[in-house]
């Protein structure tokens, strides 16, 4: 697992935990549901080794539990922007490198 994926997972777990807690406080879910969701996340989290698996996990989460839909949308959007930024920076770096050569 690369650092980027590992970092994303950590950030994701933080965000998902907050969503579960908020949903519990707002009584959108009960403790049994929270237990089921938490168990699902913990079990699946350990099986993620690459980005594709992470994306599958996100899709599964979104499909299974409504409480995550808006969080996951913004998470994915943010990650996409970040990824694009990295790609742009890489491209600029490459251009600069070519230019210096």
């Amino acid at each position, binding site marked *: 697992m690369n650092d980027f994926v590992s970092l994303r997972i950590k950030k994701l*777990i*933080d965000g*998902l*935990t*907050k969503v*579960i*807690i908020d949903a*519990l*406080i*707002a*009584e959108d879910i009960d*403790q049994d549901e*929270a*237990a089921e*969701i*938490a*168990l699902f*996340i*913990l079990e699946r989290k350990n099986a993620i080794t690459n980005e594709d698996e992470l994306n599958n996990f996100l899709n599964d989460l979104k499909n299974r539990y409504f409480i995550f839909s808006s969080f996951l949308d913004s998470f994915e959007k943010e990650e996409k922007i970040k990824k694009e930024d990295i790609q742009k920076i890489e491209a600029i770096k490459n251009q600069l490198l070519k230019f210096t050569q």
Partner: protein
Amino acid sequence: MADVQITPEVAKGLAVGLLESPQVPKQNLPSLVDRAIEAYQNGQAVKSLEMLAGLICPYTAEDVKGVLLENLSSQERDPRTGQKKEPIKGTPERDRYDKTQTITEAMRVYLEGDGQNIPKELQSAIIDYISRSPLYRDLLFDDQGQKRSDYDQISQAIAQTLLRQPQYRRIIHRLFTERLDPKKRLDHESIVASLEREIKQLEAQVIDPQKIEAEIAQKKAQLNQKNIAITQDPNYQDYLDLIAQLEKAQDDLITFQEMYKQARINNPHQLQQLTQDISSKKEEIRNIQSKLSDPRFSNIYQLQQEASSLQESIKSLEQLKQQANTSEQRQLRVQLQEKLLELQEAQAQLIAERIRYASDIIAIPAEAAKEFLNEALGAAATHYKEEAKKAAEKEEADKRRLEEQAIEKLSRRLGRKEKRKGGEIVWVPDRKQARRLLTLLFQPSGLQGFVEEVAKDEITLIRYGLTKDEAQAILARKNNPDFVGTFGQNLAKKILCDYLLAGGRLSRDDIFALADAEWGRSIIEDGRNLYEEQRKFLQSQLGKGVLKALDELRGGKTTGEWLKGNWLKISGIIALFILFGLISPAIPAILEFFYRR
């Protein structure tokens, strides 16, 4: 300060304030959620999830001890820690507390780990449960109820297997989290505390005459004791002597002083002598007083002082007793009595609640085992139930087939007679036999009597051509009212048809008897339908001409005409039977013709 004016702005502000969604108060959340939030806020999101998922124990050993002390101890709080003190050793309360504490700690350790760390106390609790469970009885005990030689090995293996199941662990986690919530408080704890506060306040206001009387009596007894102690002091006699000397000297001094006053007027030359006497008496008094100040008399003085203080108290109490008879005081005393009774009741309830709470905690491993086994065996039980149902259905189907065969055979034979046709035996409707059976049906015993007669015994049924199994199937159910209803009705409608086909007629009484009974109406309805079927069948087999020929037998009126004229007009089942009766004489001939073909 001027009153606040409710201006439109203020009203708007109030309305907006009311409409704002209230913040969910954190203190109302279950402790598990609180702990999960705490872990999350400390940057331990995974731990928080593990708590929520039931994978780790959310409570520390201190949390657990705290909630047990709070709910199982009746002792005062330790002012340093604010926690209740442990119950007194050697009391049932302490035994309960210790037992609960042991099992709770074992569960906590079990939940803290990954479910593989099994404390022996927890294992013992499970063994205790399975040893009483009928599920494992044969495995653990012999026919005489004695433990088998491998009891320990097997029971331990079962307990360990159970304790290693994730689902079992989850159940324990759930029960543990619910029942050992550090915020949990027994309902009667606060009730008792509140009553105690009220009683304290009332007691401060109430003047109890009996209590005061008792206090006065007590103080008087103490005073008496002091006085006795004074007289029993070894220096008391000396003290009395000195007091007597002092009193005498003081009296003498007064006398001398009086004499001195008189002498100044009447006898001045005595003045010098009197002055000397006075001085001498004063000296004597000082000497006695000095002797009385000796420390050997200090005990007497101490006792006298205490006696004096007691007398003062008695005096004050007697004054207070006078005030206790006001109506306000009487009312306060009644209130106090009521509160004391309430407290007594609440304390008893609290003890009961403590016992229940301890039992609920101690029972967690067994309850979890029961729940787990019920869940695990639930699927198997359903499967076996379905299988049993299928088997029962099959058995039922087999029985039903036998019954159907039996009914089929009986319906072919009952109310009919044997007739040979080219060496072949056929059974044709017989009016006499059918009538005999119908007469039975018209008896008050109805269908039951009819069935009793037809299915009297195995031999009777075999005579009707049934096999032994078929006869047994009928005999086994002949007392079942549902069976009697269906079996009897099926046979009766065939017999009725046979009777009518054989040219039988129903009397007016017969028709009314049938029409009055529920089963009779059903037979009539079925008979009517059957008649229609038979009629259509005969018509299709023999042609319309035959029926027409039969119709002519009816005094020149065709059945068609008759039906046209009367069918729609005649309502009611009895009329239909009359119709049966009218056409029936021709039927045997048709049937004979039919059988001959």
